[in-house]
Every structure is written in C-alpha cells, then in structure tokens.
C-alpha cells in the first residue's frame, strides 16, 4: 500500500529476548478507518506504542506522511500529526474538563514564561485560540455543560469522550484509539461508532483503533488487521476477516474468545 498515511514495514520488537512484534507490515490510508484486533497479548498495544514513540522498534521502518517516525520522541510524533487515547483513562486529575482538553493545543502554540508574565497581545490571542479550540473539540464530542468539573469526576463514558476531545485538540491527521469502547454500555457504543465516523467524515482524520468488541469493529472499520503472537496473520474487510480460517483458529485458541467473532 504505497501512498498510505501511516506505513509500517517489517517492524520487530523484543523485550528481554521475547518477540513481541515480528516483521509486522501494516498501513493506514489517508482518511481511512482501520482496526487492529487480536487475542489478548497479541502485541496490539505494543504496536501502538511503537507508532507513538513510547517504544522503539528494533527493526523495520515506520513512516507517516512520508516522514520517518522511528527516531522521534512521543511529543514530536504528536506534533507531526498522530494523536492517541489510552486504554485506561489517563485524564489529568484535579484539572477541569477544558483544562484537560487545552493540553492538546500545547504543541500548536508557543508562548513561554515571558509571554505568561508580560502577556503581550500575541500571547493573549494564542490563549484565546487555545480556549476556543478546547471548547470546539468538547462540543464536537458532545460534552456540554459541567465544563468546570474536574474531568475525573465525570461519568466514565464522558471521560472517554473528553480523552477523544483532548486528542482532537492536537489537530491530528491520524487518531489512535486504544480500546475506546471498553466499559461503555450499548447506547454509548452506538454513539462512539457515530463519533468515529464523524471524526473521519467531518474532519478528514484517519482513525486506527484497537478494540476487543468485535461487533463494533466489524461495523465501523473499512479494513481490519489481525495480530496474533506478534505476527500479522490477516488483513481485509470485515467479511474477509470473519471467513479467514487463521483468524478463527487464533481466536479459538483463546479460552474465552470462542464467541467473540460472531456478530
């Protein structure tokens, strides 16, 4: 898949001799919605961490919009246009909802100590822009009211959406969602599917998600990749994946996952 927005080629990662990822090839097209699934411990989150710079792959290439990401630190990768959410909520505790979302604008703004102390017009304009973007991102994920609450006191589903708003505030071209449906009930999952589609349709942002809820994955994804024991065993549309014998085998190997692939 040449011309992909995100391209991983032959990525390998090992911890203390244990292979976590083995020659993984993977791509996300511009404006695509792609899911990464696989049994527990397959290496999905490790792959995320390689893309976002938290882990350094030992071999292979990762390019984003044609630029090599491998030597970049996480904050540079975010600045390059990849935003993420976390599997376990990682909102900034004791800070309000907008303050949390404003963190995303950090890499798009510049004011330092001098600006903070002397407040020149440029700093004031920038500060207004940060607040406006945060408000706009919160409206986009449909969090209204209780803005001044501490983010971590919101209901769980709302906290998930605040995390997405915070990631959107970095103005990404690619959004990585790490198990965004975990802990959500049925109605909230429908809203999440709608939100993911809106992120792509209205903002032109490509979305890559890791998700255990196969039903949600089948509904929302255009392409699905399946990772098992660090190896990419399948790639295709929802229909192709459901019919793939290697995928079924990988899932049946799991004790509890026999029914996972059914819709």
């Amino acid at each position, binding site marked *: 898949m040449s011309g992909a927005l995100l391209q991983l080629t032959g990525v390998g990662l090992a911890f203390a001799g244990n292979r976590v990822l083995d020659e993984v090839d993977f791509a996300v097209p511009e404006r695509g919605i792609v899911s990464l699934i696989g049994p527990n411990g397959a290496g999905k989150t490790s792959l995320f961490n390689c893309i*976002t710079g*938290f882990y350094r792959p030992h071999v292979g290439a990762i390019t984003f919009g044609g630029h090599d990401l491998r030597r970049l*630190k*996480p*904050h540079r990768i*975010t*600045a390059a246009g990849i*935003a*993420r959410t*976390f599997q376990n909520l*990682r*909102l*900034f*505790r*004791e*800070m*309000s909802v907008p*303050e949390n979302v*404003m*963190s*995303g*604008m*950090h*890499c*798009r*703004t510049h*004011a*330092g*100590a001098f*600006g*903070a*102390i002397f*407040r020149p017009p440029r*700093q004031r304009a*920038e*500060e207004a822009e*940060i607040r406006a973007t945060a408000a706009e991102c919160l409206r986009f994920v449909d969090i209204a009211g209780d803005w*001044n*609450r*501490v983010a*971590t*006191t919101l209901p769980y589903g709302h906290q998930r959406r605040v995390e997405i708003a*915070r*990631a959107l505030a*970095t103005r990404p071209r690619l959004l990585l969602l790490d198990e965004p449906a975990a802990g959500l009930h049925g109605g909230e999952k429908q809203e999440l599917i709608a939100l993911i589609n809106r992120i792509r349709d209205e903002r032109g942002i490509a979305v890559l998600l890791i998700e255990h809820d196969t039903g949600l994955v089948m509904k929302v994804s255009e392409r699905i990749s399946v990772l098992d024991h660090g190896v990419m065993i399948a790639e295709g549309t929802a229909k192709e994946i459901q019919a793939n014998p290697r995928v079924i085998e990988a899932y049946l190997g799991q004790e509890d996952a026999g029914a996972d692939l059914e819709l």
Partner: protein
Amino acid sequence: MATDDRPGAGTTPALARLAGPLAALADNAAARRAGIVALLALMVVAPFVFGEYATVILTNALLYVVLALGLNVVVGYAGLLDLGYAAFFAVGAYTVGILTLRVGVNFWLTLPVAVCTAALAGVIIGGPTLRLRSDYLAIVTLGFGEIVRISARNMSITGMASGLSGIHQPWLFGWHIATPRDFYYLFCVLAILAVAVSVRLADSRLGRAWLYVRYDEDAAEAMGIDRVRVKLAAYVTGAIFGALGGVFFAVNLGAISPESFSFTQSVLILMAVILGGMGKIPGVILGAMIVILGPELLRSLGELRLLVFAVGLLLIMLFRPSGIWPGRGRQQ
C-alpha cells in the same frame, strides 16, 4: 479525587475552624479581594505598628515568601523534588557580593548577571538530570546544594568560610535603601511581584503544561508536550526566583557567609511550600510566614520553642497532609 483537600476533611475541630474561613477566602472572589486589600493595608502599616524588631523579622519572612514561591514553581507546579534550592539563593547573593565588592559594579547592574548565572546553573544541573525519570533530581540537587556551599567556603573570591561583608546598601533614584523600614518596603515590593508572576505563570500555557507533566508524564507527552523542556523551564524559573531573593538578601544583610546557604536552608524553604500546600499561592505565602514567624512568636517558651514548633508542624502534616490551604473549591 483529592477529597483530602476538602476544607475540614479529616481535621481536628481546631484545624477545621482554621480551614473554614480559609476555604471562604479561597472560594469567594469578593472575600478574596477584601482579604487581599486588608493584607496590603496591613503590609503598609506594619512597621509603624509593630516596631523595628518585628520589621526586621517580617522582612525576613517576605524574603522567604519570594523563595518559597520560586521553589513552588519547581515542586508545586512541576512536581520536581529539589533539595538544593539554597544553591540558587547563594548564586544570587554571591553574584552581588563579588561584583559589587571585587569588581565595583553598580548594584542594579548585578541583577541581570545574577539572573543569567542562576539560569545557566539551572540549565547545567537540570539539563542532564531532568531527562531521567523519578527522583534522580532530588539526589543531584542535594549534591549541587552542597557543592555550591563547600565551594563558597573554599574559594578566595567568595571569602572562604567568613564570607563577604561590607556589601553596600543600594540607591534607587535618590532613595538610599538603608534602614530596616526601607528594606521592609523593598521586600514588600519583591514579594508582591513574586506573587503576581506566580499567578500569571499558573494561568498560562506553560503553567498548565507543568501540571500536565506533574499529573501524568506519559499522557502529557502523548499530548505533544516536551516533558524535559517543560521541566527545565520550571527548574530555571525557580532558580531565577531564588537568585533574586539572594541578591536582595545580600544587600539587606550587607554580609553573606556559606552557612546561610546550607542544606537546612533548602529544607526550610521546602517546608514552607509543603506546609502551606504545594501549588497553592496563598498557601505557600502562609507556609513561609509560619516557618519564619512561628519560632519568633514562640520565643517566650525559651528553649522549648523549637520543640513546640516542630510538634506543631507534625500535627499540621498529620491532619492536613496536602497543606493548610484548602484545594480549589470549584473543583471539588
């Protein structure tokens, strides 16, 4: 979260009574304004009401307000444990001492030099250390504090163990800052500036970034924040506050010696920050006041005073572990 910050939570009745009005001050904008006006008025009349001895003590307390607010940027905002903060205080004081006495530079010209020296020292110490995670900074700063003190003791330019004396009192547009009352007002201005700068830093892109990094480094990085750079900014900002405190400390006393910049000094400033409530400006001011005025107010107890003071501090930490000042009410 942070329910232990709530006014009155887990306190003894006596401390709860103290926390009540404090919480009102923290929550209510009108009450806060009234409190600030009353405090400013008190600052102006204090030398006339309390006499010269108290003026000297209050001047010292105001110095600690400046130092504690500076360390608060490092410890309270950015969450970095700095155990050698007195080193920057020393850098400021010795810069003035050396430049005015040995080189003959005008006092006010030493200010930018002290600021630059402290910033440079901050970058040299913080630059490599802040890349590491966890509490390496505490160990390195502890060592740095001792290195500065011991160097000052052993170098002839810093006057060895006896230090430097005869530092001239400065003139400011025809005002010779000489009497204790002059210095008191000078330190009032410094403390007010330190508060204003702290308030503005807290409410800014950089101030928020300090909190993001303090609360969750990984999440902050994932949001595009360069954690090393942001921490270094906090460390250097704190260094500059400390150096400015040291500059005015030197001209106030007219003499400095290495023992003014001991580990105990660093701990005292850190105590002011933690006691009042890390990251909370009024709390830090209160902490500095308690640390300096507490032992003075207990002077009538004679030799027992430090013991009583220490027990008091322990009780405060036991019943209000996140500091005396209540947390931000709107967030509870």
